[in-house]
């Protein structure tokens, strides 16, 4: 799918060593890397066994957190994707001013905007944890790898 030239650090091509609690991917978030980061997260999450809708949901959830950093979190941040037993977790942190509310409600269908965090939470059945301080927001999403994706 991705045939860009800067895939040298793409973990999918080097088959990440999956050991207990090791990070699968660490990356710096910038506005011009949002799409590339999503492709990397997708490749790594697929490599550890996520497939189908679960994979797509996880990738979108992580992407929305990354987009949130770029749009509302000061523009820069860090992404850490790791696996602990059968859980894959992604932590996204920024250096913005944090949030003063919890995840916003889903807007009416005719209202543009404000669906990113809602999507991240609802696609993954509430596995979104937010930690806000005056020095930035840390958001964590996680998902369980199941042997068969047939069971939803």
């Amino acid at each position: 799918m991705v045939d860009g030239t800067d895939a040298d650090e793409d973990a999918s091509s080097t088959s990440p060593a999956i050991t207990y609690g090791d990070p699968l991917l660490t990356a710096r978030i910038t506005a011009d890397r949002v799409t590339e980061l999503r492709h990397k997260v997708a490749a790594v999450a697929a490599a550890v066994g996520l497939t189908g809708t679960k994979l797509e949901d996880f990738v979108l959830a992580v992407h929305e957190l990354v987009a949130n950093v770029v749009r509302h979190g000061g523009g820069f941040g860090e992404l850490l994707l790791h696996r602990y037993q059968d859980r894959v977790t992604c932590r996204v942190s920024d250096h913005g001013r944090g949030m003063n509310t919890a995840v916003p409600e889903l807007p009416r269908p005719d209202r543009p905007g404000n669906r990113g965090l809602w999507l991240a939470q609802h696609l993954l059945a509430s596995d979104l944890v937010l930690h806000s301080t005056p020095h930035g927001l840390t958001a964590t999403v996680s998902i369980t790898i199941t042997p068969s994706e047939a069971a939803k």
Partner: protein
Amino acid sequence: MISHDEPWQWHAETHADRTVVSLAGELDVSSADELRGLLSDTIRATAVVAVDLSALTFIDSTALSVLIWAHQEAAHAGGSLTVHNPTGHVRRVLDVTGVLPLLGPDDEPGTVRAVAP
């Protein structure tokens, strides 16, 4: 071809009464401004716009907001903007956010009905 630089493509066919815009690839926050410009120009040309999503493989909340915004713009211009044939995860995102009834066509897929002035 999909690359880091051009993750999405578009194609527009203008008819006498409407324009069909086909979107392909991945639409995200990085492409939202371009998408907004494309749809804005399209609505200015013909206020009835059908957006074909059959070749779109990814959409995020920011690009979705642009579609909702364009839907309002077309309505203000006395026309309509509808989305057609979303598949896979794109359809899931439109479904779970509840916007499919708003953006989808009133009748069966593939047909577009203008809003009466």
